[in-house]
């Protein structure tokens, strides 16, 4: 099996290498035969890489310790699904999964766009294949996932008990899948810049991939946070540790890129920013995916010894050079089509948000790399505590929130229309009032007061935009027309949903970080403790010995100030195999807050050592994931096609009626989609436009854009 894995890995490298050459050369020289061999090589490479993945997965499930990787991350007691999850525990396995995902995503992109026009397609595929080849080469030369054990052990080292959690099956693959999906927007951006076909065609092609990547990655990060919350037992969900920060970096720049891409599509501005952000996001994905598993954060000294580290460093260096160089080379084509229409225009709000997001990413990067930076500057590694991140990030988050709050009532190309501007002023007054109210109610932190005020502004603006949208059709009692309006503006409403998710996220973060209280107590059996509006009684401590672990359950009867009593059972597990304790926390969740209980080791039968934590508004944080997922699903749901727009599949290259000026041809130019283009910076705000008038609106929009 090892031989099969090794041979497949080498075969994959050869296939991908050849495919890169053949697809680019064949596409650019219009040599159909060469290109076809390249495509076959591509398919063969995917098959070979799948074979490597299959071999390693089989070895993990079968506990074949002749594989070094299996011996390191698996043992005989491990359930098959966690054995399979060990695929993404180590560096070599993670690289394999990631490379495979990129290869498959790239392949499906090529399939979806098989009729798109050459040379652009060739360059896109060339970039994608180069990435896949690079990752495969890293495995071959740096981290072989199917390397044999020198001496096969009788049993493997196993997986840490903290990792044996259902989230292990979802969080890492989701984040890696997000990284893989970001490759497509990057490749499209590169191809657009290289070939100089810098109309907004590439954005239409990149949009679904970027949105999917952003969503999958975001949900993955949130699952990780939830996992940390209920597994690590310190009552928080985000510790600002390097691994977490790494995954946040590309997500922040990616969020900025999705929004600046809208400004490009709708208004023809922020083009250079969009291209640079696409490159940066991809680079940061590599940075994160590599550093997560490298152990380099553990000790900076390892860096110089690691081959892989240098390979990724070279890649990052090349990206950091190539991005700005490409943009400089195409600066004529990337000139903005319009000036910015005032500070309160949508494009300005997008620019402000993008600046805030990039600065946030900068803060996170500085904090993450404080060790190496300190070593370079002062000769000693330093670390920055959570206070650094919280102090620096809070004002940026408020700026971001403020910009987002105004968006529904702003428009592209100019300041808000007089009536919208009046509404904004009223809402701003309401927001200020609610900030004062929050102060009166006991919120004493500037950041909490700010969130309260801006949340009202944001919700109000969104509500008014939706209301004016629907007013005309609803007053006539035409629900069907309203439904049609919703479907016509689906992307706009999807963006509202996602922005609701953002509001929910900020409310959750602000509530749980500013209002959190905790206490360490020792309770005797039968003793009742009054704290934070709860009466907590230790009713029992139960010991139980299971085959693999010793379980100590601490039963707490909790009577809240209002409402029914409930029981919390935090537990401690002693794992015989690894001889270590883990805490199983107990959480009672409600919309106003969580009661979180952790039992600590060392308790006897008659008393328990506990940490109790109250985290207000935590549920809003998790709800944000649901809202974003719903919004993304609505935004990405395939559009029902009727009439003249039917052939939306990328047959552009073959369609003779394809208008000139859109030679990119990855997706036909469909201006009506711009109207509600996602991320509520929608098309020109046209409150109350009835479905029947969409064509007119579209025409106007087009003229608006071009003119």
């Amino acid at each position, binding site marked *: 099996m090892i031989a099969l894995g090794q041979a497949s890995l080498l075969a994959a490298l050869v296939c991908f290498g050849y495919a890169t050459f053949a697809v680019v050369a064949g596409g650019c020289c219009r040599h159909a035969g060469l290109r076809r061999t390249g495509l076959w090589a591509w398919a063969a490479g995917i098959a070979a890489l799948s074979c490597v993945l299959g071999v390693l997965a089989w070895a993990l499930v079968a506990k074949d310790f002749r594989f070094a990787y299996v011996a390191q991350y698996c043992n005989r007691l491990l359930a098959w699904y966690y054995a399979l999850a060990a695929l993404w525990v180590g560096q*070599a396995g993670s690289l394999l999964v990631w490379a495979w995902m990129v290869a498959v995503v790239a392949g499906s992109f090529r399939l979806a766009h098989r009729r798109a026009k050459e040379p652009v397609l060739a360059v896109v595929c060339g970039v994608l294949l180069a990435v896949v080849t690079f990752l495969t080469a890293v495995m071959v030369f740096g*981290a072989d996932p199917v390397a044999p054990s020198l001496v096969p052990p009788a049993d493997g*080292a196993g997986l840490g008990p903290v990792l044996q959690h259902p989230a292990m099956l979802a969080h890492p693959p989701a984040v890696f899948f997000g990284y893989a999906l970001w490759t497509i927007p990057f490749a499209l951006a590169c191809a657009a810049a290289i070939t100089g076909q810098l109309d907004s065609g590439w954005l239409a092609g990149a949009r679904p991939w970027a949105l999917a990547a952003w969503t999958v990655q975001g949900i993955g990060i949130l699952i990780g946070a939830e996992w940390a919350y209920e597994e690590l037992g310190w009552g928080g969900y985000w510790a600002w540790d390097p691994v977490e920060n790494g995954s946040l970096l590309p997500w922040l720049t990616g969020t900025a890129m999705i929004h600046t891409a809208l400004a490009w599509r709708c208004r023809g501005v922020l083009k250079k920013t969009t291209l640079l952000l696409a490159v940066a996001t991809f680079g940061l994905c590599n940075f994160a995916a590599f550093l*997560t*598993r490298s152990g380099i*954060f553990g000790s900076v000294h390892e860096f110089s010894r690691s081959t892989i580290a240098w390979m990724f460093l070279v890649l990052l260096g090349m990206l950091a050079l190539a991005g700005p160089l490409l943009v400089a080379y195409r600066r004529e084509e990337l000139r903005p089509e319009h000036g910015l229409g005032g500070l309160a225009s949508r494009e*300005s709000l997008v620019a402000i948000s993008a600046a*805030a997001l990039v600065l946030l990413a900068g803060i996170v990067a500085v904090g993450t790399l404080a060790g190496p930076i300190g070593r370079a500057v002062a000769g000693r590694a330093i670390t920055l505590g959570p206070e650094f991140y919280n102090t620096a990030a809070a004002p940026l988050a408020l700026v971001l929130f403020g910009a987002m709050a105004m968006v529904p009532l702003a428009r592209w190309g100019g300041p808000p229309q007089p009536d919208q501007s009046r509404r904004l002023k009223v809402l701003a007054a309401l927001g200020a009032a609610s900030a004062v109210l929050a102060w009166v109610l006991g919120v004493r932190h500037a950041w909490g007061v700010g969130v309260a005020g801006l949340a009202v502004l944001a919700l109000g603006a969104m509500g008014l935009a939706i209301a004016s949208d629907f007013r005309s059709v609803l007053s006539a009692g035409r629900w069907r027309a309203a439904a049609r309006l919703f479907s016509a503006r689906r992307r706009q409403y999807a963006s509202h949903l996602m922005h609701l998710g953002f509001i929910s996220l900020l409310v959750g973060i602000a509530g749980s970080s500013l209002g959190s209280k905790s206490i360490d107590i020792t309770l005797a059996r039968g003793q009742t403790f009054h704290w934070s509006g709860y009466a907590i009684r230790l009713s029992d401590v139960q010991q139980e010995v299971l085959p693999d672990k010793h379980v100590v359950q601490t039963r707490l009867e909790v009577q809240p100030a209002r409402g029914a009593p409930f029981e919390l059972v935090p537990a401690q597990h002693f794992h015989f195999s690894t001889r270590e304790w883990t805490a199983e926390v107990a959480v009672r969740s409600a919309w106003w807050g969580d009661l979180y209980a952790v039992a600590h080791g060392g308790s006897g039968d008659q008393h328990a*050592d506990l940490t109790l934590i109250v985290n207000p508004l935590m549920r809003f944080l998790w709800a944000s994931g649901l809202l974003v997922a719903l919004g993304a699903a609505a935004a990405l749901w395939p559009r029902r096609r009727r009439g003249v727009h039917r052939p939306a599949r990328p047959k552009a290259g073959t369609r003779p009626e394809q208008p000139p000026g859109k030679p990119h041809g990855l997706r036909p130019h469909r201006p009506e989609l711009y109207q509600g283009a996602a991320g509520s910076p929608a098309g020109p705000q046209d409150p109350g436009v009835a479905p029947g008038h969409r064509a007119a609106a579209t025409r106007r929009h087009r003229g608006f854009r071009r003119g």
Partner: protein
Amino acid sequence: MTPGRKLLVLALVLVGVTAWFAWQGASGSWQYYLTVDEFMAQGDSLRNVRVRLGGKVAEGTLQISADRRRAAFDLAGTGHRLAVRYAGILPDNLAEGRDVVVEGRQEGEGPFQADRLLTRCASKYEPAASTPTAVGPGEEGG
């Protein structure tokens, strides 16, 4: 002033404000982050300075109080050892041979007084033992 220029000014203000806040946050929360060996090599210069140290709980030295609120152990680097006293809630998976990070200070010649103790894989992955190339000699099995 054109909108573009206004926006530029706004961006500069944003950068400035962020830098100021970042500086505030950093000056309140930064610490040296050293290995035990580096800390011992720096000698007296780091006495009474709050630092963060990474090392391994030496075999046979871990003592835990009955209420699990205090611990004493030797923090081992590759060449040096440092006696550590810790007060606070213990991580559940504290064990001999495990990589840990402690925060605190050494006052005078006494033991290192730590008030924070993190086990290294409190984050989600075992960072040590990733690949043969990334693992130094003597670090296997961490």
